[in-house]
């Protein structure tokens, strides 16, 4: 069995409304998959269910990350197991500096009693920040507190680079970014691409996929994957709009 993030027949609901309606998707390690879909189709819900948000009830289905049953784990256990979510709306943590937060997150991955090497930590963090063209002053600022939309998204990518997950879901990381910032963020993601990692890039627009070129594109409508294809599918969607897919489905 080769390594992958494998989602099978996933059903999830919130407040009694079913949002994910039997979603099936497999991201083999080393590949970048994209999900596109209209607003409200359940993309963010998928990302949060994968992360283990307790607001959502999973009634059916399985999620296996390299064979590990993800749904059995707590939110933090999933993270430490190697699952990362770059949030569409990253939360603010008043009073907690970026550096301290990252340090705590890395510390949480060490065995009890083992301390993080502070010098090495700062060195790595500064390297990654330079790559993302983030000012050093961000280390001392409270996590996402007063950050612009673009700064928050960059900060998500910084966290991802520091935590080096096995699988990362990026939920509309492009929204709120101007074209220069988009390129920087895409470059950051591309640098992390490799045989040891899988990505699921959620986006509303094809634009991002010009910079993070996906291996596979999926179209999500109403809680299900309705169409999958190569990177050209993204362009097709951009030209013809999501109605095209829904109409095509209606005909079929």
């Amino acid at each position, binding site marked *: 069995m080769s390594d992958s993030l494998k989602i099978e027949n996933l059903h999830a609901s919130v407040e009694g409304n079913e949002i994910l309606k039997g979603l099936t998707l497999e991201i083999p390690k080393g590949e970048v998959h994209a999900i596109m879909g209209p607003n409200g189709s359940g993309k963010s819900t998928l990302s949060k269910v994968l*992360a283990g948000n307790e*607001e959502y009830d999973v009634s059916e289905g399985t999620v296996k990350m390299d064979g590990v049953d993800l749904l059995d784990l707590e939110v933090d256990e*999933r993270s430490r197991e190697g699952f990362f979510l770059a949030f569409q709306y990253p939360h*603010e943590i*008043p*009073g*907690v500096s970026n550096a301290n937060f990252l340090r705590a997150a890395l510390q*949480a991955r060490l065995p009890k*009693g083992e301390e993080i090497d502070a010098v090495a930590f700062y060195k790595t963090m500064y390297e990654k920040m330079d790559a993302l063209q983030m000012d050093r002053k961000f280390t001392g600022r409270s996590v996402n507190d007063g950050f612009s939309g673009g700064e928050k998204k960059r900060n998500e990518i910084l*966290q991802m680079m520091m935590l080096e997950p096995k699988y990362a879901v990026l939920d509309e990381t492009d929204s709120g970014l101007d074209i220069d910032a988009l390129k920087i963020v895409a470059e950051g993601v591309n640098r992390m691409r490799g045989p040891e990692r899988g990505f699921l890039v959620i986006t509303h627009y094809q634009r991002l996929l010009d910079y993070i070129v996906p291996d596979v594109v999926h179209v999500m409508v109403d809680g299900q994957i309705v169409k999958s294809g190569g990177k050209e599918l993204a362009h097709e969607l951009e030209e013809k709009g999501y109605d095209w897919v829904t109409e095509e489905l209606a005909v079929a």
Partner: protein
Amino acid sequence: MPDSATLEAVNIDQDEGNFSYPEEYAHDAGYGLNEDTIDFISNVKGEADWIREFRKKALKIFESKPMPTHWASEDLENIKFDDIRYYLAKGQRPTRSWDEVPDDVKQTFERLGIPEKERKYLAGVEAQFDSEAAYSNVKEELEKQGVIFVNSTEGLREYPDVFRKWFGKVIPTGDNKFSALNSAVFSGGSFIYVPPGVKVAHPLQAYFRINAENFGQFERTLIVVDEGAEVTYMEGCTAPKFETATLHSAVVELVAMKDAKIQYITVQNWSNNVFNLVTKRGMAHENAEIRWIDCNIGSRLTMKYPGVIMKGRKARGEVISIALANDGQHQDTGAKMIHAADETTSNIVAKSISVGEGRSTYRGQVHIPKNLKGCKNNTECDALLINSNSRTDTYPAITVRGNQHATQHEASVSQVSEDQIFYMQQRGLSEGEAMSLSVNGFVNDLVREFPMEYSVELKRLIDMEMEGSVG
């Protein structure tokens, strides 16, 4: 601090203060409180008549005063004064060497890390075990400069001319029911005098430890800092977790003479069976500064409103308080600022955290009378709620008469939302770690102003408390 392996080896609970040694006391005043109790205490201490009389008068006032349940918590009714022992002592004078301290007492303070801290960064230490100090020492060079650092028994006996003048003057016996109780049965606590111009560079530390069950600890502290002198005093408190309620009721009086500075820091980590009812007030003379840093973690009910009477022109008073109320705890804290001279300035920053069923209350009083000019007060109260059951109340009372003053008041209530915890957990922090980091973030701007050793200690206590609050 012992490392984790040592902690495990001696099998201390996660709550590190939760251990006790078998009781062996030479002097036990028995249960309940009446004139005989007072005679017992006075006899053991060999006190002067005026102190005995002072105590007896206080007892009458205590008995005549009703419980303040008309404004404070009904939980006060659960204090059973007859089931409490008011004086427990081993009958030894405090020693200057840890080697001479009885083994069980010495081990207690070693487990709490006191001798180690003393070596590292303290100018003097007093360690109180139940009613009396077991250890008391101050660095020689300070002693040579005339700094006095003793317990209350010794202070009143050896230095009456220094201490009697101020004893009970900042906080009169009848200030409230519990100051009266303390005045009746006080024992232990620190008496400190710093001569003019002496700036004590390192903190003096007192540690109050309750070891016995059904016991009341009533230390009495008086700190007099003479003209242009400066001192920082830190107190720490712990007790084991007993099934029954324990009472801690201290009185702390500070006197800062002209141009003097006093910083008084409390780290309280009482177990949640302790009623902690403490009266703390300072008097600041001309251009003097009194600063209370008051951190309340633990206890069942804490009622504490440190205050400053600004008696001289340009005197300054400050209260910085952090209260953390976990399940089953009520932190009823605040500050009292009495402006009694022109151009006096006071600053109150109170931050409270309520977790689960925990409850925190802020009570403030700022008084600026009409005849004064150019007084300033700034009051800031911030509450942080962690989960929806938490409760927080704010009762700021700012009486400002006349229009020649500047006052400013801000209050905020914020939540650590489930989304915030989810976000942090997604990065690999456990729920407890996430809450702990949020709480530390909330108090961070205050803690940055604390002495380094103390902020580390506070962070550790918050971490422990938050870890323990996750089911």
